[in-house]
């Protein structure tokens, strides 16, 4: 499993895509930090960027990588290696590469300009988002045989979680605003990893009211620290469950 991960990392390092991703994030982070005097303001702007770019790059990069590694997987399947170690090896390899790129692009600037708890939380939530979108990418690539369909499904997932979902939640809130919706809102946020990631950071920054109803309700319901822990646990499910589904399909897949 770790040997496979090693070859995946070698393979990814040879392509320039990841370096470009790192440099782009680095550029954004440094410019945001140098534009504002107040580092927590920059952190909020950085968060908005991270919440959009990180899931998108993670899911698209992992999906295309998986299809490009199809030949490698085909080669491995005929060897005395179990299918779970093949898939998990791929997952670990892709995860290590993307996490390193994220650390280089966002982690280092945070360590330089804002090495406090809030910065750390932003990093953690970025890492968790990366992992959960890689996991979703693996699910769609294993489920779809066709590359175009797989990438399409990944794009749809990203679009759903970052745009459509919030719209749906707003719609629900508007239509049922005569009812007590606090608990429903908490439940709804748990179904979207990007919302969870955002909540974790906003809770830490103590400006949850800025996020509107969801944030305020969260704050009231959990209190800051418990809210962060709750969100992280749900986030963990968002990493593990799609990967488990992918594993389940992959074990029976015809190659």
């Amino acid at each position, binding site marked *: 499993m770790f*040997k*496979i991960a090693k*070859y995946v990392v070698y*393979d990814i390092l*040879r392509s320039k895509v990841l370096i470009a991703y790192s440099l782009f994030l680095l550029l954004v982070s440094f410019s945001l930090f140098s534009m504002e005097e107040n580092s927590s303001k920059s952190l909020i702007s950085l968060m908005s960027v991270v919440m959009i770019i990180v899931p998108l790059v993670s899911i698209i990069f992992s999906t295309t990588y998986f299809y490009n*590694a*199809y*030949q*490698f997987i*085909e*080669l*491995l*399947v*005929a*060897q*005395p*290696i*179990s*299918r779970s170690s093949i898939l998990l090896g791929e997952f670990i390899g892709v995860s290590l590469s993307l996490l390193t790129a994220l650390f280089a692009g966002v982690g280092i600037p945070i360590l330089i300009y804002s090495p406090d708890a809030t910065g750390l939380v932003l990093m953690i939530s970025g890492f968790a988002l990366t992992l959960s979108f890689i996991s979703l990418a693996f699910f769609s690539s294993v489920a779809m045989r066709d590359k175009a369909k797989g990438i399409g499904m990944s794009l749809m997932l990203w679009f759903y979680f970052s745009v459509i979902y919030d719209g749906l939640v707003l719609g629900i809130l508007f239509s049922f605003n005569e009812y007590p919706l606090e608990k429903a809102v908490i439940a709804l946020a748990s179904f979207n990893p990007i919302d969870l990631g955002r909540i974790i950071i906003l809770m830490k920054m103590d400006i949850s009211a800025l996020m509107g109803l969801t944030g305020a309700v969260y704050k009231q319901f959990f209190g800051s620290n418990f809210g962060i822990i709750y969100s992280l646990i749900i986030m963990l499910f968002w990493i593990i469950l799609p990967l488990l589904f992918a594993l389940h399909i992959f074990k*029976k*897949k*015809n*190659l």
Partner: protein
Amino acid sequence: MIRTEQLEKSFGKLHVLKGLDVEFNSGQVVSIIGHNGSGKTTLIKCILGMVVADKGKIFFNGKSISGDFRYREQIGYMPQIGHYPENMKIGQIFKMMKDLRKNVDNLDESLMEEYKLSELFEKPMHALSGGTTQKVSASLAFLFNPKVLILDEPTAGLDPLAAEILKAKIIEAKSRGKLVIITSHIMSEVEEMADTVMYLYEGKVNFYNSVAELKKQTGEEKVGKAIAKIMKQSAHV
């Protein structure tokens, strides 16, 4: 050594294998023949665990292969068309395979040497011709000295010299008591190498017997003609 029991496989509406019962034993060179789409490659891929059968079982040395992967340590597989990571070099592929498989103290690098692959170690896989890729596949199949060799159209795409080297290697493997399973459309090769012929017709075993028996039953001298006769018979039924 390898036994299948009521093996069935469909791809969507296409029913490829329809209840296959076969047994392969060590020391045999079995040639699986059948027209295109008769399920040859599917059968091989089922044995390798690359395709999961819908129904039925496959036993390797008496143990069911479902959920197992260790049995593949004893199999060397040469695919019809080898797919390799494109940006790796030949040398890296060999190094990686040795790294990934554990039994590396008993290596058989003779094919690699005869094909002079070490001179090409720095070439990336995407720059290789089809024939060279096949040489890599063949060398990899024999590299770990497996007890079972599964070769899917081994000589297709190889130049005559390379094909002869491979054939000699297959005959040598047989003399060392290995089981070799070959699919081939080239009847002269079947004649040269195989001692047993299995004819798959529409997902079922139509004929499975020794070459001598095949010749006797059909009254033909040449394997090619004998098989053609059997193919015609089955098409009439």
